[in-house]
């Protein structure tokens, strides 16, 4: 991992101790992100991508959640174990988060202007009136019309897309170094999705903010991120610059995911799906978590412990057979990378 990294996560394990057993939501995840970089985290529901990021902000309810191991160094501060006070100065100030559902992420009892500027009151010590004056400018930044009047509205008077814009304005008002976006477009319709992505990209360029972009849409990753992690059952299966991830898949799961993208499939042909279902993470998994669904899996995939290793230049894979040089994967149906820009 490079020394200029803004955030270095090492062997993060977040387990939930529930009545039904220990749920290993995040099981040994390591990654780093540099200043101004965009890192995508892709994975299906329950793959641990959200929990991993919630862990970084320590938004995991403890108990039942627990950090079993690992650290997350943000500019030298371990986010997982630093004192609550220190964390509070980082949260919403140097490290912000945008949530999945803009409909429920705003306090219905607070004016938009007050909410957008709340980080300034907390972290810059501005009074309410002083902060409120900065509201219209912040709203204009994210493209909200008639911002001078809109600061006085309440969230229910805004549409979903506008609320997500408000969330973005709120997250970026303190000019954070790192922004975590947890599926920020999932709850929005497609046309609005594109606008929101464009907005995040613009703001990122303007402020030089690094972005961790969590999504289950592998297409968004290709158009939006410099680098991406593919997560599955709480682990990282593959990590690479986005172009390599698509052109030279190094893990059967990634390959299978791409084969299942409708746009890459021939029209009229039955869409490829991955057989089976994700494993139950409340039971310990020894080998590769994808082995049972993988068409290339051998006996040793299930029995031996497999770590994420660099298999090509800046390309990491957790596939044993790829690591051993036994398997050479081809990109999905030879098609172009989905155009998503």
């Amino acid at each position, binding site marked *: 991992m490079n020394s200029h990294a803004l955030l270095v996560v090492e062997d993060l394990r977040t387990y939930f101790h529930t009545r039904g057993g220990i749920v290993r939501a995040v099981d040994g995840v390591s990654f780093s992100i540099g200043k101004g970089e965009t890192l995508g985290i892709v994975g299906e529901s329950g793959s641990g991508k959200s929990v991993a990021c919630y862990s970084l*902000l320590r*938004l995991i309810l403890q*108990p039942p959640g627990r950090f079993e191991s690992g650290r997350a160094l943000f500019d030298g501060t371990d986010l997982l174990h630093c004192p609550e006070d220190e*964390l*509070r*100065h*980082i*949260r*919403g*100030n140097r490290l*912000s*988060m945008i*949530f*999945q*559902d803009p409909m*429920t*992420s*705003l*306090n*219905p*009892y*607070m*004016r938009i*202007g*007050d909410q957008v500027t*709340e*980080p300034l009151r*907390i*972290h810059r010590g501005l009074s*309410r*009136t002083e*902060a*409120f*004056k900065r*509201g*219209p400018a912040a709203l204009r930044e994210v493209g909200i019309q*008639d911002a*001078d*009047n809109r*600061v*006085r*509205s*309440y969230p*229910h*008077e805004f549409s979903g897309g506008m609320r997500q814009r408000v*969330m973005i304005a*709120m997250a970026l008002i303190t000019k954070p170094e790192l922004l975590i976006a947890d599926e920020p477009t999932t709850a929005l319709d497609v046309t609005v999705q594109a606008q929101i992505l464009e907005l995040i990209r613009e703001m990122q360029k303007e402020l030089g903010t690094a972005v961790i972009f969590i999504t289950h849409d592998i297409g968004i990753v290709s158009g939006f991120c410099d680098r991406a992690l593919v997560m599955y059952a709480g682990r990282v299966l593959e990590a690479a610059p986005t172009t390599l991830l698509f052109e030279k898949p190094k893990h059967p799961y990634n390959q299978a995911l791409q084969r299942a993208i409708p746009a890459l499939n021939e029209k009229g042909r039955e869409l490829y799906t991955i057989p089976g279902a994700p494993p139950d993470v409340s039971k310990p998994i020894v080998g590769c978590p994808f082995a049972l669904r993988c068409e290339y899996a051998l006996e040793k995939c299930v029995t031996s412990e497999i770590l994420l290793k660099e298999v090509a230049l800046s390309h990491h894979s957790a596939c044993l057979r790829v690591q051993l040089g036994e398997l050479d994967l081809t990109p999905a149906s030879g098609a172009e990378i989905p155009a998503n820009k």
Partner: protein
Amino acid sequence: MNTAIAEPPEAIERGTSLWRDAWHRLAKNRLAVGGAIVLLILTLASFLGPLLLSQSYETQDLQLGATPPSPQHWLGTDTLGRDLLVRVLYGGRVSIAVGLCATAVALTIGVLYGTVAGFLGGKVDALMMRIVDIIFALPFTVFVILLMVFFGRKFVLLFAAIGAVQWLTMARIVRGQVKSLRRMEFIEAAEALGLPTAQIIFRHMIPNALGPIIVYATLTVPSVMLLEAFLSFLGLGVQPPMSSWGVLINEGAANMEESPWMLLFPGLALALTLFSLNFLGDGLRAALDPRASKD
């Protein structure tokens, strides 16, 4: 929404709070304003009225006895010949003071206790709520008698005793509200912004839980007034010859057949207060919910 656009730009500069907003909305609600005015009149009359009247609440006229309303005694007299108007006004002092103070006590303790329990959750919550259960299980009258025995018959104790019982339900209601709010995304978002816990509670949680709190508070006032009447009836509350609405209603109920006015007027005063409070409470609840406003 249209009003916001029509307002001059200076108005935008200062951030108006939920409270100021609510005030504007409340002022437009006629029932609520009417309720507030009636309450104000009743309170002023109770506290200032007796000063203007010549009779004292304890002046007896045994020869007169119970008489229906007349030019000398506007509301009539009771069985001991005491002027009912003066007694209703004096009684109002006690009832309104007890009603508002005990409710305020219950509100403060209940909201703080419930919020803390609901917010912290887990073992703290379980322990705090078991304490509530235990206090709930104590027989109220025994509790009051014990208080009186240990501290003597003081008027303040009446507030303390009633407040100590009324906050329990409030705490439960608030805890439930807070628990459900706790997992809302905007609370998580507030946490992600680095807001200290106390500010999350006061800025984000309590305003969202205000509706049920206010409704329950307006229901607490009448039940507190009736509790006071009950205690007075047992001889633990207001001592004769002092009066309260509860005491007067009790006396009136005993003499209902011969002198109905003795029940009618204190009853009217109590009913009027409760109606006004309910209208005001309902108006407040609506005014504090920004989603309810259509203007």
